[in-house]
């Protein structure tokens, strides 16, 4: 026992040393970081430090076992450093990195004594792969504990042996579910799946790990004997495997999944784990990582990850406060959804509406969500009850003395909104409370006029449905304070959403960009294209939903209202297509009224087709079907143009905002690298050229902005 503490020269040489200590029982505890580190990722430096520590252990005499654990509470290891992943450009470089990491982790297996992973907090990606090389895994029941291999979400495959070890440990079906979907498991499900061997209370994590080591030492074993049983066995080791593989393969070729190569690679690797030798499997894995890490898809996804991290930092700036008590006025679809989200995240929320029916519906809608999560065991019953209890619904506002977030989601009527805000202030809303509006089209500044201390008035624009849509536009009015913006961003992050800060200009970012896109889709329809065709082209482009289906979701009433506002602000560029008003007149609004272009439940044809026919006839021009490339040019290029216009008009501050906003807001294909990434890879010159051509041959509305033209030249 010749190790005491990390050597003192560590600090001076600048070389990273991982804390390593051997206790009186001969068990070493190796920590993956220093106590002050709240996040641990594998940089090259840390991998080498781990390598040195494991080598040191290999030559330590009298050692009986090793526990590898995180730096302290609530963190094991969050995987490879994303910056590192992003920086690797070539296949060879990626492959070498994989081989290096795996060969270091393999030292755990080569040690003569048993090695236990004591896991608390995130144990994901490379962290999980290290744990998989350990002989036994103990997980803390701490709420932060999550285990899994989410690499495919970054467009890569696990490269440090994860696909091979995971599949051998838990069997093919579970491994595919975890790796292909990047799913993370909480401790109890992880134990059930066989990913961890034992669960420990947080305070006894190391003791339980020692206990597991003692048991192995007593039995004279390096590792427990493991065999696959039941389903895991049948679907891994017998011909039944084909069923699991085919089901997974099918899912990977459907919908948006088809644009992502990494899960398909991961699938092949998982199959190799049970069909070829470990050496071959590991080699194939390293090669696959190299191939995947160099793809533009992976670069786009890691870039998107950085954008989400950037977005999360918005809520951490000075003056950001946590909201504790919220009053939501307006119990419609948006208000009810928002209120449920707030209650979900621990905010005491009161939802007010004059209609009792709307209020009951809001509670029922939340209950539906909660029941589903309870039945899926994502939530315990008492937790669901606490969430439901947090949502009070009433027609009376009550006292506002304790409210720190007041938000309206009533009809888009400036007068009504101004009146309600004034009323809130008169009813005793504290001067430091946030006064927020969920408006999608009205100017925040015009509302702030109604309120003393207008610096607290801010727009918090949720998208429909608030339960699912990940983006929030935080609207900064002329007088909105930095603190109010930061508080709104913090709220968004707390709700698990991504905020972007936008200027107080019509349509903000998302609706403004969407407007020419939807208008153009309607024009293409009227010209004689089938909605199914248009939607298919856009789905093939990579969007999650085609424009015609999107119109049905939004509703033609809302689309009309928004496009009127847009036309008011941007004149002919945003002139609404005649189809909009015709659909409204025929009450074929979309999903909400029993169907629009598609049927009520989104299937078949809806009542809107007749309206479309009439509009086509009235136009009196013969039908003309567009080519696939024309559809993309007419729908997507103006979207690019409008996005850059937003940047030039100061609606957003940076290209990153455009990318995050449009990926999260309209589902612009993440694998394309955001809208600016797409524009650059498509070539700004090409886009400007195509738009100029369209402007010349068809309509001046296509004329690109000077800003875009300037960029194309440079």
């Amino acid at each position, binding site marked *: 026992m010749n190790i005491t503490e990390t050597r003192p020269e560590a600090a001076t040489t600048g070389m990273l040393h991982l804390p390593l200590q051997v206790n009186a029982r001969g068990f070493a505890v190796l920590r993956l970081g220093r106590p002050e580190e709240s996040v641990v990722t594998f940089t090259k430096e840390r991998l080498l430090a781990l390598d040195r520590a494991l080598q040191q252990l290999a030559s330590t005499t009298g050692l009986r076992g090793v526990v590898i654990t995180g730096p302290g509470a609530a963190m094991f290891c969050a995987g490879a450093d994303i910056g590192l992943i992003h920086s690797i450009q070539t296949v060879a470089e990626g492959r070498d990195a994989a081989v290096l990491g795996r060969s270091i982790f393999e030292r755990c297996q080569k040690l003569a004594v048993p090695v236990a992973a004591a896991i608390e907090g995130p144990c994901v990606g490379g962290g999980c792969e290290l744990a998989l090389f350990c002989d036994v895994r103990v997980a803390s029941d701490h709420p932060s504990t999550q285990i899994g291999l989410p690499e495919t979400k970054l467009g890569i495959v696990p490269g440090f042996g994860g696909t091979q070890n995971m599949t051998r440990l838990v069997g093919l079906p579970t491994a595919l579910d975890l790796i292909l979907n990047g799913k993370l498991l909480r401790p109890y499900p992880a134990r059930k799946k066989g990913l961890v061997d034992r669960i420990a209370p947080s305070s006894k994590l190391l003791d339980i790990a020692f206990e597991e080591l003692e048991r192995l030492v007593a039995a004279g074993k390096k590792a427990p004997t493991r065999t696959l049983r039941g389903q895991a066995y049948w679907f891994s080791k017998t011909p039944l495997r084909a069923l699991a593989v085919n089901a997974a393969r099918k899912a990977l070729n459907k919908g948006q999944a088809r644009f992502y190569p990494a899960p398909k690679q991961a699938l092949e690797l998982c199959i190799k784990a049970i069909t070829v030798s470990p050496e071959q499997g590991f080699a194939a894995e390293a090669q696959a990582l190299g191939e995947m890490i160099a793809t533009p898809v992976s670069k786009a996804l890691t870039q998107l990850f950085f954008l989400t991290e950037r977005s999360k930092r918005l809520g951490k700036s000075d003056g950001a406060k946590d909201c504790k008590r919220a009053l939501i006025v307006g119990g419609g679809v948006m208000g009810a959804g928002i209120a449920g989200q707030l209650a979900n995240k621990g905010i005491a929320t009161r939802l007010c509406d004059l209609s009792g*029916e709307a209020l*009951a519906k809001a509670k029922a809608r939340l209950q539906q969500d909660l029941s589903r999560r309870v039945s899926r065991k994502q939530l315990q019953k008492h937790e669901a009850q606490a969430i439901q209890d947090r949502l009070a619904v009433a027609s009376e506002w009550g006292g506002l003395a304790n409210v720190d977030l007041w938000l309206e989601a009533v009809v888009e009527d400036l007068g009504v909104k101004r009146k309600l805000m004034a009323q809130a202030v008169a009813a005793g809303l504290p001067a430091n409370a946030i006064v927020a509006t969920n408006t999608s089209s009205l100017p925040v500044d015009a509302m702030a006029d109604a309120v003393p201390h207008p610096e607290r008035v801010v727009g918090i624009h949720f998208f429909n449905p608030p339960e699912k849509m990940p983006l929030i536009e935080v609207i900064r009015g002329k007088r909105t304070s930095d603190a109010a913006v930061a508080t709104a961003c913090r709220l968004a992050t707390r709700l698990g959403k991504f905020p972007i800060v936008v200027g107080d200009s019509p349509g903000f970012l998302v609706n403004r960009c969407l407007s020419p896109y939807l208008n153009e889709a309607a024009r293409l329809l009227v010209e004689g294209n089938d909605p199914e065709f248009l939607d298919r082209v856009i789905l093939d482009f990579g969007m999650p939903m085609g424009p015609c289906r999107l119109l049905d979701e939004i509703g033609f009433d809302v689309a009309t209202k928004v496009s009127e506002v847009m036309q008011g602000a941007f004149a002919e560029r945003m002139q609404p297509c005649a189809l909009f008003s015709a659909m409204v007149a025929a009450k074929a609004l979309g999903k909400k009224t029993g169907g629009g272009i598609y049927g009520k439940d989104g299937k078949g044809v809806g009542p809107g087709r007749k309206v479309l026919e009439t509009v086509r006839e009235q136009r009196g021009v013969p039908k003309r079907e567009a080519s696939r490339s024309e559809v993309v040019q007419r729908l997507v290029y103006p979207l690019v143009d409008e996005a850059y216009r937003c940047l030039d008009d100061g609606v957003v501050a940076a290209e990153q905002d455009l990318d995050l906003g449009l990926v999260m807001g309209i589902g612009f294909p993440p694998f394309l690298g955001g809208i600016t990434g797409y524009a650059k890879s498509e070539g700004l010159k090409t886009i400007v050229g195509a738009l100029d051509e369209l402007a010349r041959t068809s309509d001046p509305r296509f004329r690109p902005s000077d800003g875009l033209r300037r960029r194309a030249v440079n």
Partner: protein
Amino acid sequence: MTNHDLDLAIVAGWRTPFCKAGGALAGASAADLATHVFREVLDRTGIDPKAIDEVILGCAGPDAAEANVARVAALRSGLPKEIPAVTVMRNCASGMEALLAAEQRLRAGDGEVFLVGGAESMSNFPLLMGKRLVKFFTGLQKARSVTQRLMALSKFRVSSMKPRVAVVEGLTDPITGLMMGNTAENVARLFGIDRAAMDAFSLQSHQRAEAAIAANRFAVEIAPFASQPHFAAMISSDDGVRQGQTMEALAKLRPVFDKNAGDVTVGNACQLTDGAVGMLCMSLARAKALGLQPLAVIRGHARVGLSPEFMGLGPVHATPRALQQAGIQFSDLDLVEINEAFAAQVLGCQKAFASDDYCHRELGLSEAIGELDSRKLNVNGGAIALGHPIAASGARLPLTLAHELRRQKKRFGLASLCIGGGQGQALILEAV
């Protein structure tokens, strides 16, 4: 600090609608109901929750899963964990007991601001396993070998499946073996109150409640409740009132307690009902300091015991002491709320108040307490029409009384209940 500064002021209060057991509120437990009214009190008053010293809630039949309903509801409504909570139980007066307990804590210097109330879910009163069934299950549990198990199983009798009905057992006096309705028959016989008088009183209760609802008078005290567990609708009004109730319809009902010669029917007795009441109470001094206008202030109270066989006369026994504490006369009372457990019992109270003989014999007074004018009594109807969610009633009476005193711009009111087991409880409110 003047003496009055230590009087307990009811600052605000709301209740759920009172709905027939097995009906609109049946999906909610007592804690669900109490959570709702507590949250409403917190939200609507906007009081700093940390200012509350204790939560006191009456509940006569809490569910086994939430035995201290007060604590469960306090935490669920979002009160900080540091605030203690107690559930109190004095049968039908449990809700009033909560209020009086707060008053006494205030006078004892044990807190100044209280969240009080009463909650009852009679829908959820359980069916209990009979003793024989319990014995059967314990025997089965203890059995180890196969033969022992077979022996234990063989002891099963279908008849032992008969459950004990908590609501029936709860409404039976274990000392005298009488059901509450039988004690009402006793009161009726003592004062010669006949069926017609009972039915007429019941009709009046329905008519007054109907008028109060039509005039939207309960709107100030009801906080609409989203029906559980499916939240299908917002329940905003009491549903026990029978619109267009008639003497003929009442006369058709058969007596339920004394089937042979009785007069008490379901028509002239209170209804089994679910409901909860929550009130914010504090010293008058604190209310003044916070700039809150109290609904009313408690000026006097009393709790007394009497023969369980005549428990319905409890209010008569409690009132003189409460009046004495308040320093006022019976004739000073502008409004009176006596819980309508049974028409016979309220009418009996009215007779006893006015009887020299009864007041002398039972209370040792030199003469009758006084005539109780029907125009002052239960002016918005009572439990016969609105229902009697046991512990909630004791809190509803002072709340309804306080609102009515303010509405009529009157000063003094009496709220009183008879209590199963032979007790009476009363309090005097003054609108300030």
